[in-house]
């Protein structure tokens, strides 16, 4: 659990982050959104004390994050950034091993961890361990960056626009992979982005920052149905609201009994994507398949329309 308590950061008297209080539940994905200059990155960087707050406190599992030197704190918190920041003079394996080496893990444990993470991120250790970052594609570099952030098994992973430098196709895949890995490792993720689609895709809860203030902190559905300010509404986009609602839940959550013709959609597909598929194929319904391929029912156009409507 991360408790952010009245945290403020002033530069030359101007508050960049102004008295923000929020509690981030463990094992969830929290996305901080806002325009540039809203203070979202500064807020994130105060969690691992890359920026020292002017006032307020941040507690990790009840422990003040100033109770140890900054570098020790940062070894316990994963950190992944836009443009990956891989060390160009070190191999992929050495990059991933950065924090375990700083923590003096023994060699066998480090090697095992590196191999495990490479496999987890679908990078064959035999091929990639000895490569240098410039020999990788953008998507591979990004995955190594996240693997490095997770190497010391941190409970908390901070991500600053981690997918910002990726092209749309690789970005969608990277986002899906991140969710899978989060479910597997049960890491608490705090992610900063200005991409609302990304926020709605990933977040359990979204924090909206505007001019240094936290204007709303809630589930994606709460933001759509009950925006706290005009700014939140603009950020979400009035015309996007029904689609945002659909993008939060999966096909599995909209399953109705019965069968339908057509190519089954996966239960984990977002309802928004299913709607798109229905409209494109001109059908009223599509069958839904569980992860193992068994059909579990159907999703109907009518059912999705009901779910996309404003809650009464």
């Amino acid at each position, binding site marked *: 659990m991360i408790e952010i308590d009245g945290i403020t950061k002033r530069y030359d008297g101007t508050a960049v982050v102004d008295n923000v209080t929020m509690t981030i539940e463990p094992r969830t994905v929290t996305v901080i959104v806002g325009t540039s200059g809203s203070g979202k990155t500064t807020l994130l960087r105060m969690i691992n004390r*890359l920026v020292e707050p002017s006032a307020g406190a941040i507690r990790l599992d009840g422990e003040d994050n100033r109770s140890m030197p900054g*570098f020790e704190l*940062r070894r*316990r918190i994963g950190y992944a950034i836009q443009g990956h*920041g891989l*060390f*160009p*003079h070190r191999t992929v394996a050495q990059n991933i091993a950065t*924090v375990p080496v700083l923590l003096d893990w023994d060699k066998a444990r480090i090697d095992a961890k590196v191999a495990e993470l490479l496999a987890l991120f679908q990078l064959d250790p035999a091929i990639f361990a000895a490569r*240098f970052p410039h020999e990788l594609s953008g998507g591979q570099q990004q995955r190594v960056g996240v693997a490095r952030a997770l190497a010391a098994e941190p409970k908390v992973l901070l991500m600053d626009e981690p997918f910002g430098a990726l092209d749309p196709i690789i970005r969608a895949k990277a986002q899906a992979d991140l969710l899978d890995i989060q479910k597997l490792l049960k890491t608490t993720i705090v992610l900063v982005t200005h991409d609302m689609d990304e926020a709605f895709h990933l977040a359990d809860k979204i924090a909206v920052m505007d001019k240094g203030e936290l204007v709303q902190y809630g589930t994606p559905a709460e933001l759509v149905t009950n925006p706290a300010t005009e700014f939140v509404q603009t950020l979400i986009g009035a015309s996007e609201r029904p689609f945002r609602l659909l993008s939060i839940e999966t096909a599995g959550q909209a399953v109705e009994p019965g069968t339908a013709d057509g190519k089954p959609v996966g239960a984990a597909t977002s309802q928004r994507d299913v709607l798109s598929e229905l409209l494109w194929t001109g059908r009223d319904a599509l069958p839904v398949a569980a992860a193992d391929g068994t059909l579990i029912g159907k999703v109907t156009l009518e059912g999705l329309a009901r779910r996309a409507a404003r809650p009464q």
Partner: protein
Amino acid sequence: MRAWLPSLLRAVLLAILLAFLISPGWFEPLLKPLVQDNAPAIYNQGSLLTLTLLHLRTVAIATIAAIIVAVTLAILVTRSFGAEFLPLSRSLVNVGQTFPPVAVLALAVPALGFGEKPTLVALFLYGLLPIFENTLTGLTTLPPSVMEAARGAGMTDRQRLFKVELPLAMPVILAGIRLSVVISLATATIGSTVAAKTLGEVIIAGLQSNNIAFVLQGGLIVGALAVLIYDGLSAIEAVLARRAGL
């Protein structure tokens, strides 16, 4: 040009240089036409090999001292606590470069006496600037995302310096050292005006006795050394730069 040709030329140059230093007599017929009757065509007041080694030693000592001072200074002024000394150290090092080595020799002789010492001082001062400036450039132009990642991973200031900053800046630092070495190799010859044992002795002896062969062989040995050392250091730099993915 074929890829192996430059390496072949370097190997040939090295072979000729070594042959000349070990057995200069073989080359006497080539130099004989340059001298008047009876004058020696090959330097005869000492061993060319010994002079070359002493020359290299002088350059090496001065360069190592310059590296230690310039790199240390550049590291200190790029830390947060040393930033305000950056302009001061820049001017100091620039003064070292603008001061003519001959003037340094003239000033150093009364204090240090004749011989190698004043030459070392002159070469040291002259060699500081390229190394300092390049180290500064290397340390201040590191990719911000890499530095951010190093901090975010929990490296201390010292760990960042030794594990990330210096390795990444190394190719640029080496380029500065290379420049400094080549300047020193040429400049060291004037050390012989104050009785330092360098290849300048051969050139000065040639000038005094109007012996073009002496001047030529002294100059060519220095030139060959400069080319070979320059190429050698360039090759090391290229390997490091490739390893650093730059």
